[in-house]
Every structure is written in C-alpha cells, then in structure tokens.
C-alpha cells in the first residue's frame, strides 16, 4: 500500500488556478522532457510493480495505488531510450484516455511555465518521439526541453505482444 510518505516532494498545486501553460519537467536518460501539468495526477516513489504476461517490454506491469490497479509504462523504453536499472526512478501518474497510467521517469525536475511564444515547433534536437506526439521544444535555463503529449505517447500502440498462445509454442515447451 502506498503510504503518505511515498509522495514526492514537488508541489503540483500551483495555486493561481491557471495551469494551461504549466508543464512538469522530468528527466529521461539525461534529456529533459515536459508534459502538460493538467494531465498529471500525482508523482509517487518507485514501488513494487508486478509484471504481466504477454505484454511488450515497455509495459512494466501493474501496481496497487490505494486499491486501484494501475498500469506502469517505462517511458525510457517506450521512447526507445537506453534503459537503466529497473528499480530506480519515479512514477508519474498520468490521466490518459485509457484512465490513469503510471510512467517511469528518471527524475522530476521542476514545474515550469512555458508560454506558447517560447515553444518552438521545429525539431531542434534529435528525438525519437513521433511527430504527432511532439509538442515542440523550449528552453529551461540553458537546456532544451522536449514537450510531449504524454497521454498519447503512453496509450499509443499495442501493449500485448501475444494475443493467443499458439499450439506450436506450447508443444515445444511441454
């Protein structure tokens, strides 16, 4: 069960009520990414994630979030970035079209406001993000931040790698 101290000490509540341009900036394999704050439900520490058979490698499994079962997607693998130790990182719980999904990120950095005028739609840095999930790049201090449509990224594609167990495979293993 998640205890209150699982909460990560970064305030998602920005107080002024206008969150449209606020983004959560997080780190993945030494690059910075940002997702719209309105999509983010909470950030929790890494906890016991149970794998699910037949699922693609980036699907890390399921976890128990206060009695609700939530899918965990490894954002590094999903974006084809080099994978690190599976036990490190933080879980960012995102509201997606499929309901809440927890994304594994290396670290969360800051909540920052990027005004539309500060966002460049051009692909300034090399990125593996699909164009339709890429919302542009912006500067944060001296670094570039990739703005992504995190909900669409997480729910994209087929999660299951096996839809049916084939007879051939079974006989081989029997």
């Amino acid at each position: 069960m998640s205890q209150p101290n699982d909460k990560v000490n970064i305030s998602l509540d920005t107080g002024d009520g206008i969150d449209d341009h606020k983004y959560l900036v997080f780190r993945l394999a030494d690059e910075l990414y940002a997702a719209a704050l309105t999509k983010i439900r909470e950030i929790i520490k890494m906890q016991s994630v149970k794998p699910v058979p037949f699922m693609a490698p980036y699907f890390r499994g399921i976890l128990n979030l206060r009695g609700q079962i939530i899918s965990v997607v490894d954002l590094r693998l999903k974006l084809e970035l080099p994978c690190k130790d599976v036990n490190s990182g933080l879980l960012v719980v995102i509201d997606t079209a499929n309901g809440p999904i927890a994304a594994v990120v290396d670290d969360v950095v800051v909540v920052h406001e990027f005004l539309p005028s500060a966002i460049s739609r051009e692909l300034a840095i090399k990125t593996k993000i699909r164009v339709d999930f890429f919302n542009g790049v912006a500067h944060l201090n001296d670094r570039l931040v990739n703005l992504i449509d995190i909900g669409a990224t997480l729910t994209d594609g087929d999660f299951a790698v096996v839809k049916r167990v084939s007879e051939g495979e079974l006989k081989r293993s029997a």
Partner: protein
Amino acid sequence: MSFDPQLRELQLVFIDEAKQFLDDAEETLMTIEASGFTLDLINKAFRLAHNFKGSAHSVGFTALANLAHKYEDILTALKKQLYPLTPALTSALLHCNDVLRQEILILKDNPDHESSVDYELSALDAASQNLHSPAAAPSAHDAAPATAPDWSQGFEIFSDSDDKPKVATPPSFAAVKKSDKAPPPKSATPKNEGDEILKVPAARLDQLLNIIGEMVVNQSILDDCNHQATLGSGTATQAVAYMSKLVHDLQGLSISLRLVPIRPLFQKLRRTARDVASSVGKEINFVDEGDYCELDKSVIDRIADPLNHMIRNAVDHGVDTPAERQAAGKSPVAIISLTAITQDDQVKIIVSDDGRGLNKDKILAKAVSNGLIQAGAEIADDDIYALIFAPGFSTKEQVTDVSGRGVGMEVVQRAVDDLKGNIKIQTALGRGTTFEITLPLSLSIIGGMVVQANGQRFVIPVSQLVETIELNKYSTETITGTGRALSLRGEVIPVYHLSDLLGRGRGRATPRPMASAPQLAHGSSTKNAKGDATLVTRPAVIAMHRGKKVTFEVEEIINQQKIVLKRLGPEFEGLPGIVAGAILSNGEPGLVLSLDGLIAGVAA
C-alpha cells in the same frame, strides 16, 4: 421542438418511469392470461395505463398519451365486463406495450422524434370492436378506418417521423418477414451504461448511512488514540476490531445495492415462452418460482439473452407437439419451468421442460458430421450432452425462425463462462431436459485460489475449479500429438503447466524456475511447507473446459481468499485468459485468470 433542458430532464425521468410502467403492465396482462381474470388485476393495469397517459401528456409526448388513452378505454370496458379479455385482445394490448417501449427507446436518444401511433390506435380499436361491444365507443383520437388485423401473426410496424397516417390494413406476411430481419436503425443506438439508473430500497440506504456514521465515530476514536500514542491500548484494539466488522458489513451492503430482483426478467421470459409457443403451435404451461431472488444488475443484464435463447429452445426444440405428447401418453400441455434459488453467494437458475429429452444418437451423429468428434469415439453420456454447447451445433433438422441457427447454446455457454458460472444438463429421453445454471450473486467479489506460476501470483476463480491434486501421486505420461496427460480415477485428463500457458520465457524480468518437472516449491513460509520430506511437490488444479476436465500444473498453491475484482484498463484487451485484476492479501496487485480463455487456443 425547441430545446428546453428542463423539459428534457422531465422527459428522461418519464422515460425511466415509463419502462417500469410498461413492464408492470405486461406482467399484469400475462398474469391475467395465466391465472384468470380478476378485477384487482384489471384495476392495476388500468392505473398503470392511466398514470402513463398523464405523465406522457405532461412531458409533451402526445402520441404516446393518445395510445395509452385507448389502452385505458379498453381496460375500462374490461373492468365493466362489457366484453371478455380474449387471447387476441391480450396480444393486441401486449403489442401496444411493445410499440410504446420502442417509441420510448427512440425518444430517449432523440427527444424531437415525433411518434405516430395511428396504426396502433386503429388496431386497438379494431381488436375491441371486433368483440361487437357497444363499450368500444369511438374515442376522439381515432382517425383511421378500422379493419381487423390478424393478430395471430404478430407484426412490427414502426412509426416514423412523417405525419402521414398509415392506412390500417392487415400487414402482409412478406412485410412481417422484412421487418423481422431489418430492425429500424433508430433502436440500434448503443446505450450508455454509465447513465443507468438503479432503484435501491430506501431501507438499504438508511443502513448504509448508519454504518458510515458508526465508522466516522470509530475513526475519531482511532485518531484520538493515534494522537495520544495509545494505539496499542484496549480502546484502540476494540475500535480496530469493531472497524473490521463495520467494513465487512459495509462490503456486504454495498454489494446488495447493486442487486435487483430477477422478476422482470422472468416476466420477459414468460412472454417469450408464450409468443414462441403460439407461433410453433405448441401448448405450454409456464411455471416460474423464486422470482424474488436478487442478482447483480450486470449479471441479470448479461444472462437475459442466453436465458431467452434457452426458453426459445425449450419451447421450440425441447417440447414435443401436442400430438406427439398424446401419443407418448403425456398431457398435451407441456410444462416449462423456470426456477431461481439463492444459495450462499450463488444463484441457481433452472430451466426445465418435460419434452423430448436430448437424443444422444442424434447429437453424436450431428457432432460427427460437423467434425466435432470422430466417428466411433468412446464418449461418456455427459460429454455427449456437453457437445450441444460446442460452436456451430444444432440438432434440429430444419432451421426454424424461432431457434435453431446453431448458435444458441454456444452463446449460453459463453455468457455463463463470462459470468464465472457453470451449466449442467440432466436429460432423459422422452421425459425432458433440465439445464441448471449456477451464477455468482455478484461479479465484484469472488472466491479466488491464489497460485504461483512463473514466480508470480495469479488468481483463479474457485468457480472454475473442480479439485486440486498433487501430481506426484498420479501417473502422467506424454502422449504423441496432445502433450502430457494424467490418469485420474480412470479418466485421462490433459495436463498443461500454467507457466507455459502464461508464456514462460517470453516475458522478461521474472526469475523463472526450471522448465523441467518436477518443480521445487517456492516460498517455504507458506502453508504447504509441511516438512522437509515433501520438498518436491507438483500441485495442480483441475478445471472444466467445454465440459471436459483439464489439469493445470502450478508452481505453488498459495491460499484461497475472497477477491475483489478490479477492472483492468483497455491496454489489457485481447490478452489471452486475463480477465481482471485484484489486490491480494499481501497488498500486491495480481491478475485474475480465466483458465478457459487461456487454453482456448490450444485445447480443441
């Protein structure tokens, strides 16, 4: 019609109520037909029609109100006993019910739909005037000339939005067929399940509030203990014990909030039986029992169609014709009985007829010709009967309109599987057939067997299991072409390893045990670690798949516990055999399996 949100809201309330009105009215009519005319019943039907009329008027559904008015006129005449309630008139009234129900469904999604029920109005007139009664005085609403439609055919004419009154002529048979096959697209709009409204007895809500009230008090006691650091004290222990009782009560009560009586479904089935019997020329006496039993709303919704299939099957296939019955020395009136019994956390629904019984030889011959089994195969009787649930099976030589498209029983089996229930057949040639469906009361809490496979815990609903065994005590052998099999009390049962079925080696990150049997038991701290002497155990569970036993070897059987089912997200769609999630007693998330779904692709 301009959009008026307030009126729309009232209309939706009306639509919700109206469904109940119509169900009640139909039930009343059926009761009158079955058990005879009483003034009480007619009065009840009259009140229902009257209320319906009033409400329909007030929300602007004038056409519906007019039809209800006509309905009411006829009931008034019946009340005054100016003419008898003939079967034809009952059919006319029932049909009128159906039309109102369809109209309401359309109006639910499209408030601007203009109902035109002139045809039904004149038809009702005709049905009553046919009885040559002075009481069926023309009302102000009838416009079209009345001719006598042939009610025995039954027909479906849908009113559409144009204002042209339809000419009331008896529908031709061709027209009937057409409307049967192509229902109007209007009614095909999918309904949003989320908008569903449940009726809950006020007493249950009061109970709910009471329990929650006590929980709040108890919580503050615990908070207090927490502040004063006296959580180990007697007061705290007592509060925790009481809290767990309250939670248990709350759990039971919250499940009961979703329980609804099975009565309306039984009523619909009675109607089905009646309609089918009259269309195939059979005489039946429909007996139901236990309609007060309560089931989860979603269970009732999902079992409704399969039961409908079964009743149709029973009347059309199961029951013999009056002539056949007399030749066999039976009463010409067949008995179809529908019974519901609540037992612990299960409900049994029994559909029984005293008809022909299942014909083993015919089933065998059919199964052979369909390629389901090989000719000359030795099959136990129960297995033969189970063949009727196989896909594409139908023994009736002639496919009838009523049933016999060869999909019916397969649908029943699938629905029962989905609901984590099971179905049994008892039959005797010439004496009848009984189907016994066992369903869990609620879908949200089940008994689960927690097992380990691929080093991970999975839940198997206990309802799927027949028994658990220790494989080392029996001989298993490898059979060419089919894999491993186990010989248990003279039966040969195929054996699969759950870890293989769950894709051993194809997932990643799970530390996996050796593929070769025998397996070492994991988790020495759990129950089955009785001592060092039984280090090598090969626990397995036996489940039924399409009426046949199948053995699933597991790494370990952890325990049996109550499982609260959790819905999984759309990303789990299509995964073989994974039906739900659950939080296990150690607080970890687990997956609930359907063994049936898991081996559907491998065991033919």
